[in-house]
Structure formats: C-alpha cells, structure tokens
C-alpha cells in the first residue's frame, strides 16, 4: 500500500475535537467524510493535525469546507493545533477567484416547463419527419431523371447486405413457423377427418400473411437497427456535415440507396420465406398425415387462388420502405450523445415493427373490400 501511516480519524465528542493521523489520500475520503459528520455533531471546536502526514487536495478541501461551515454556524472558527496543511493556501486562492462565468443557469424543473419542453420536442419530431419526407421525395424525383444519382452500386450493396445475407435466418424461421402451424392445424382438424385442409391452412397462412410478416419483422430487427446505428454514428462523427460540405446530398447518398435496397430485398426474401414455408408444410403433411407429394400439390393448387401469392408479395415493398424510412430517419435524429444513439436505435426497431403490423392490418381491410 502507498500509505506510510494508515489514515485514522478520531472524534472526541466531549471536547468537540477531531484528531487526524497518518496519510489522508483521496481513497480515504469516505472515512474522512464520516469523521467530519461526527465532528460537526460534536460541535466542531478543535482540529488536531499534529500527527497528520500527507494530505491530498480532495481531503484538504473537505476539511477546509467543514471548518468554514463550523465557523459560520458556531460563531468562531475551530481552533487548529499543528501545522495548517499546505493545500489550504491553494484552496483559499481558488475560492478567491470569481468563477461564475457566462454559463446559463440550470433549467427550471417545474412541471409546466417540462410539459412545454416535452410538447415542443414532440412537435419538433413531427416537423423533422415531415421535412425528412419532403427532402426524400425531392431527392427521389431528381434521382429518377438521372441514373447516376440512383447510385446503383450502393443500392446493390444494400440488397446484398439486407437481402442475401438474411436468407439463412429468414429461411429457417419461415420453415419452422410453418411446420409448427401445420402441426397444430393437423391436430385440430383430425377429429373431423379434415386433415387434408392442413394444406389449405398452411398455404393461405404462409402466402398471404406469415411469409411476408415474419420476414418484415426479422428485417426490422436486423436491418432497421443497423440503418439507425450506422447513420447515427456518422451523425455523431460529423460525417453527415462532411458530406453536405462536399455538396453531396445525404438523402441521395445514404437514405435513398438504403430505401431502394430494402424495397428490392424484402420481396425477394418474402419469396424465399414463402417457398420454405410451403416446403415445411409439405414435409409435415407427408410425414404426419401421410399425404404424398402429388396429392399435396393437387390440394395446394385447389386451395390457393391465382391472387394468393401476390396478395402477400405486394405488401413486401411497402413494408421494406416503412422499415428503411424509420431506420434512416431515427439515425439522422441522433445528436450529441451515445445514449441518444441507443435510444433511437431501439425506437427505430419498435416503430418499424409497429408500422409493419399496422400497415398489414390496413392491407387486410383493403383486400377484403376489393375482394382480392
């Protein structure tokens, strides 16, 4: 240990004396704090520093503050025995300096002020989302006219990262979920001798809803968060400002390729999910209800309308756009701190999943109305 003498503090309650001995380092602050509290209760009359060794600046400060407090409450300063610590002169020098500079006072904590701030914050978020949408539409309009501005290479990279690399996980999830629903369906239908309808259940469920919805939720968790985090870190690192200073449009360089990439990738992933879902259902039908493959395909053909596949797939680009827009917008809203980055990444995932499910409900109503 670096201590030459172990720090000790003794308070004599009768005489109001605090006696310190040994070296008092920053790590002894807690012991000193307790002693000073006792000393203050005992009246803080005398301070005995004859046996004290090295006194760090932190402990010296607490000692100085305590004696100053005792002087104001007790009427006269405590009597000091022993040498006053060398740091006292330095601390007096510090205290003499006027350090109340032009810094705004801490904000008021009144509920009204906080409510106002929260309201302003909410409106600002909406305003930002609107500006964002406007700027993006403008950029997309420009990009439509010039192929160079579409940044094909970047779009392809995002299709690769968000689509191709997600194939294994999406395939496995779609397969498993379809096997599970087919299994439960077959069990429920068996008492009625209607096991064959398991095929209908799986085909309709997977093609219309499960395939695209599961894929979208997986992608929201996987890619929505990645978009928000990537762009958020760039924002914290002033990279967005750097782009703008070069006359580049961040919407064109960062947002549009991600949105286009996901609008292309999500339908492709949905097709994979649909295929794996039907495969899972077919395998289960083959081995659980002994339905040979030819009959399975026959039943499948009867069960689905020509539009069934498209009713699921048409939703995919919309979901992809919602996820990409939410992720990139939240990323661009990151400012100042790493905590913001974490918070907005979470918000991006939660909101994009919510939006996907909400949009799915709207689609369901719409398809019902037009009898699709």
């Amino acid at each position, binding site marked *: 240990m*670096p201590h030459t003498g172990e720090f000790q503090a003794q308070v004599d309650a009768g005489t109001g004396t605090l006696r310190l001995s040994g070296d008092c*380092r*920053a*790590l002894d*602050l*807690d012991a000193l*704090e307790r002693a000073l*509290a006792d000393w203050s209760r005992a009246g803080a009359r005398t301070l005995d520093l004859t046996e004290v060794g090295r006194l*760090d*600046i*932190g402990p010296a*400060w*607490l000692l100085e*503050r305590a004696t100053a407090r005792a002087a104001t409450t007790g009427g006269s300063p405590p009597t000091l025995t022993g040498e006053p610590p060398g*740091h006292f002169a*330095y*601390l007096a020098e*510090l*205290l003499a*300096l006027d*350090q*109340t*500079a*032009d*810094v*705004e*006072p*801490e904000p008021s904590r009144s509920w009204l002020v906080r409510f106002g701030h929260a309201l302003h914050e909410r409106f600002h978020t909406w305003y930002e989302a609107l500006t964002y949408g406007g700027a993006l539409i403008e950029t997309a309009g420009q990009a439509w006219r010039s192929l160079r501005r579409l940044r094909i290479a970047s779009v392809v990279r995002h299709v690769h990262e968000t689509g191709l690399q997600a194939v294994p996980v999406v395939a496995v999830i779609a397969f498993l979920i379809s096997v599970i629903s087919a299994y439960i369906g077959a069990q429920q239908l068996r008492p009625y001798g209607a096991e064959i309808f398991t095929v209908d259940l799986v085909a309709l469920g997977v093609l219309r809803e499960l395939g695209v919805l599961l894929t979208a939720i997986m992608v929201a968790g996987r890619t929505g968060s990645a978009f928000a985090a990537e762009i958020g870190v760039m924002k914290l690192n002033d990279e967005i400002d750097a782009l703008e200073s070069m006359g580049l449009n961040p919407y064109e360089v960062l947002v549009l390729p991600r949105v286009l990439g996901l609008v292309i990738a999500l339908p492709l992933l949905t097709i994979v999910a649909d295929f794996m879902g039907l495969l899972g259902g077919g395998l289960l039908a083959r081995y659980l209800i002994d339905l040979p493959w030819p009959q399975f395909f026959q039943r499948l053909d009867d069960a689905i309308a020509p539009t069934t596949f498209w009713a699921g797939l048409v939703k995919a680009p919309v979901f992809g756009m919602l996820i990409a827009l939410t992720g990139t917008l939240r990323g661009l809203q990151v*400012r*100042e*701190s*790493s*905590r*913001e980055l974490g918070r907005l990444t979470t918000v991006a995932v939660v909101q994009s999943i919510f939006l996907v499910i909400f949009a799915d409900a709207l689609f369901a109503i719409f398809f019902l109305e037009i009898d699709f």
Partner: protein
Amino acid sequence: MTATPPEVVISVRDVVNRFGAQTVHDGVSFDVHAGEVFGIVGGSGSGKSVLLKTMLGLRQPDAGAVVLEGRDITGMTDRELREVKRRYGVTFQHGALFTSLTVRENIILPLVEAMQLEEATLQSLAELRLRMVGLPVEAGAKYPAQLSGGMVKRAALARALALDPVLLFLDEPTAGLDPIAAAAFDDLVLYLRRTLALTVVMVTHDLDTLARTCDRVAVLVDRKVIVDTLEGIVRNDHPWIREYFHGARGRVVGGAEEAGRGA
C-alpha cells in the same frame, strides 16, 4: 542541476511493441522523474499512442517492462493493475468525456465507483475539481456536447484529477485549441504541477506547449527513443528531428530556445 539522482516515477525498459510483422517499438527505454513534465513527440504512426497505452497498462508490450513507482506493471494481475490505475489520471485526445453524463457526473464517476460518499460531499468535490481546472461551477450541469473545445479539455482534466493522482498522462492536451486557450491550458498544467507536485507525461505536437511546459522530451524515431532536454533535442542531428524543429514550422521553438537560455 542537483547532485542527488532524481527520483524515478516511471521507468520504461526495453519495450518492444509489434503489430503482426510491423515493429513499432524496438527496445524503447527511458525514465520519467518525479515532478517533471515529460513530453513525447514523434511523427504520425511512430507509436506515440501505443507507447502511452503501454505505460498506462492498457496494452501488454511484446517484450520489456514498464515500472510505475517501483512496481512492474507488465504481467500484473487485473486486480493489482486496478490499484496502480488509481495512482494516475489520464486525459484523452478528444476528451473522452462520457457524452450521456453531465460534466459533474463525469467528474465524480471515479469517486462513486471507488467508494460510498454522501451526495453533498460529491457535489462539493465536483465543485473543487471544476475550480481547480478553472471552469465555472455552473458548467458542471452541462453535457459535454454543450461545451467548447477548451472547456472539454478542462473538464477531462478535472475528471483525471478526481482521485488526486500523483501522475498525470495527457494525450494531445492542446490539439484543436486556439493559441490563447492552448497557452491557458499550458499555464494550468504548470500551475497544477507546482501546487500538487504532480508528475506529468504528455504526448503533444504543439511546439509551443513543448517549449513552455516540458522539462525533458522523448522523440520517437526509427522505432527507438531519444531523450534529452528540449535544447539538447533541438541540437540533435537526426534528419527527422532537424526537420521537425527546424523545418517550415520549427521557428517557434528556435525563439523559445533563445528565451530558455536567457532565463
């Protein structure tokens, strides 16, 4: 110069650092004496940051030893190293303040982690550190993003001082500051060194800072180190050192050298 040999606080012994096939340090040795301000300079990629990390115990050298206050920190257990780390304070190049905490929370973090203290005591100690580095007490309530570059450096120094270290490591303390703020920071370092008897090791590219604050300078060249007083280094014949101090931007130290002789 006193006749008694100076007390050695840090001793770097034949340190070798490699990244794959690339050798950054090949037998680097020097001593840092108690109470001095020790500067480290070197070109980009010469391994200043790596050397600093090795001295802090954040990186294990591939060979050699680093002795801090008489104890070899290479090969120490994490527990022993934690003890050692409470003896020094560090400021990083960009401040490395925790952006999600206020300045005051940043400053008291080392205290909160080390021991149990009353809230009022912590507030009081935060005030002390803010005063020590010349920041207004109100700045404690701010978040790092709301501070100017100079204030961030001071706040980082305040946090480094939280546990009353005997050793202070500063990585590029004046980089990115205007000359007035940089000079004020130099003064602050010298003032703290004098009043608190600190030993300061700083990595810097600022020739003015080097001339004003550093007692001795280590130059990293050719994977080795050359240590001397600034005047001695300036007279060195090594081509890189000549270029560094006598090149297009070297004039300032030339002037400072004259001033140093006059004093």
